[in-house]
């Protein structure tokens, strides 16, 4: 039975989603406990899988008992296991934190909300764990469809931005499918490792180059990389609280993982970085993404919209870091995936807590927030310092690897962009702090009682736990890199998969 642990990661949330739907119609109170137990079980099995991978090396799980090129197989190495743990942690923290806001936001359809929540987590976990190229498309669709529904349920503007997100997401996923079609017509197989072994033997390189460009453009669209990011700010800023804080930390990071997996496992590093000559273009695109994203974030006057543009900047960091081509750049990108997911989760949970207490999002309504919601704002401060990159928090270490990778690869414009955007981040967050701390809480609203209107306790504890996790990740960043990310990146580069 112990060799079946990887299957529990996907099967338990899927079965839980079905049970929640069936039970939800009978008794509403059953939905939340089943969902939390399923996510906790999935979280535990991801940790067991991580321990097994670090002890015995990669796990190959043959689905339905067939060998890789004929059946679908999972190939779990350090990178997979790390991202699986990240997803399970974000999902678990978010479901506990947003229990009261979800019940308040969706009173009559809470059961279906938790079904979509679990299906989104199953889809995202399936994307990370699968070793089959077409299976990745199917799971991408599950994650996207449940994402469109969860994001579409907000205010009047939410359904327009969600439909816009649906169009761009479908074009991205179909371009990825088209790219795998080119790959299939060239190699005849769908398993990642099998394609990787066939590709060097082929002679018409131009077909493989076109397939790589198609897959990449599709993934850039799903990842909201700079020129194709227009759907993200609207989709995340008008979304309801609980779904925004689930989807914002995960979708773009998992798409980045897919880009790393496709570029390094299928196309092997020497083809992806040297023969494709894409490096300079993508790094320059990342530089433009970072600069323009930061400037656009400065122009916003609403909190969630500013955070959405910061996500576009972070995607620019990670994509640029990966396309630097050297090991430190890729290590920085992978570490930044982990750190950025936790930072975005913390920021969106604070935005959700603020929105639940004073249902206004614009900056001018945030006066005196430090006095009214002290604990939420301290968590906001920790996340802000982490995004800026102040040493004790984890954001500093991943930026450090990205900076040294940029210098090592000779892309000084990338390092310059990193430093400039960190400065702009400082301005962004201290503007919020200045409004919420220094501006006096104008007491013309006498009717509002002056005391502390802190967010409810069951939202506050996970929020403070996430802020604490940011600092703990900062302390253990070095051991995280040496124990997990170094072997993952070296195995990707040497292609020993």
């Amino acid at each position, binding site marked *: 039975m112990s060799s079946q642990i990887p299957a529990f990661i996907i099967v338990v949330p899927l079965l839980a989603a079905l049970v929640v739907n069936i039970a939800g119609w009978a008794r509403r109170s059953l939905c939340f406990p089943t969902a939390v137990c399923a996510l906790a079980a999935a979280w535990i099995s991801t940790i067991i899988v991580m321990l097994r991978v670090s002890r015995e090396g990669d796990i190959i799980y043959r689905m339905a008992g067939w060998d890789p090129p004929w059946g679908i197989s999972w190939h779990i190495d350090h990178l997979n296991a790390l991202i699986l743990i990240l997803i399970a942690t974000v999902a678990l923290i978010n479901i506990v934190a947003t229990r009261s806001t979800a019940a308040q936001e969706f009173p009559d359809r809470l059961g279906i909300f938790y079904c979509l929540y679990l299906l989104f987590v199953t889809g995202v976990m399936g994307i990370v764990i699968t070793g089959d190229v*077409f299976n990745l498309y*199917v799971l991408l*669709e599950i994650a996207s*469809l449940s994402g*469109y*529904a969860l994001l*579409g349920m907000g205010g*009047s*503007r939410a*359904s*327009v931005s*969600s*439909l816009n997100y*649906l*169009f761009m997401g*479908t*074009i991205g996923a*179909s371009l990825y*499918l*088209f790219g795998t*079609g080119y790959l*299939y*017509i060239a190699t005849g197989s*769908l398993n990642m490792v099998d394609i990787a072994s066939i590709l060097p033997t082929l002679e018409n390189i131009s077909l493989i180059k076109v397939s790589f460009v198609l897959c990449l453009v599709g993934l850039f669209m799903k990842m909201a990389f700079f020129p194709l990011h227009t759907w993200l700010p609207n989709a995340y800023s008008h979304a309801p609280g609980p779904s925004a804080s689930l989807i914002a930390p995960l979708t773009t990071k998992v798409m980045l993982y897919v880009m790393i997996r496709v570029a390094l496992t299928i196309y092997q590093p020497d083809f992806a970085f040297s023969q494709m000559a894409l490096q300079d273009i993508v790094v320059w695109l990342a530089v433009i993404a970072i600069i323009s994203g930061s400037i656009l974030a400065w122009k916003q006057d609403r909190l969630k919209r500013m955070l959405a543009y910061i996500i576009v900047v972070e995607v620019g960091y990670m994509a640029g870091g990966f396309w630097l081509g050297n090991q430190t750049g890729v290590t920085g990108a992978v570490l930044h995936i982990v750190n950025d997911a936790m930072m975005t989760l913390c920021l969106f949970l604070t935005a959700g807590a603020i929105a639940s207490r004073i249902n206004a999002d*614009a900056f001018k309504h945030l006066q005196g927030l430090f006095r009214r919601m002290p604990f939420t704002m301290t968590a906001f401060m920790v996340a802000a310092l982490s995004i800026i990159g102040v040493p004790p928090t984890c954001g500093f270490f991943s930026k450090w690897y990205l900076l040294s990778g940029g210098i090592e690869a000779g892309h000084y414009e990338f390092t310059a962009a990193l430093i400039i955007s960190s400065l702009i981040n400082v301005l962004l967050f201290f503007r919020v702090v200045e409004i919420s701390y220094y501006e006096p809480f104008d007491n013309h609203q006498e009717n509002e009682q002056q005391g502390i209107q802190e967010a409810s306790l069951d939202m506050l504890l996970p929020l403070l736990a996430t802020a604490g996790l940011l600092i703990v990740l900062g302390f253990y960043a070095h051991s995280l890199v040496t124990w997990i990310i170094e072997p993952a990146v070296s195995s990707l580069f040497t292609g020993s998969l």
Partner: protein
Amino acid sequence: MEELTTLVMAKYNYWGVVILLGIGLYAMIAKNNLVKKIIGMNIFQTAIILFYISISTKYGASIPIIHHGHGHTIHPADYMNPLPHVLMLTAIVVSVATLGVALALAVRIYNHHDTLEEDEVLSQLTTDESTQA
């Protein structure tokens, strides 16, 4: 001339796929009505399904159902490649699922804004925002 016909004979299916992709993409970008955009999205997805199916065809091969029982040796050249058919069963169901969600969103937008035209919806939203701020 004869060399051109063999080229056309060998590739016209893939050109049809590319033309349909162009139609779908054009409809999604340039059309103003939301339902027209959804039709364009569906044409885009069925074009990619046509691409996969045209990979699987073989001249002189029959449908992928083995008609004689056990014992006979089965030559792969007699039957078409079943793998793209399986993949495309999934892609068709995915396209219907996406269509369902897109139409649900379109109906929801109509409930809020009483119009399906993209420009009218955006103008209403900007007026709402200006009154709200």
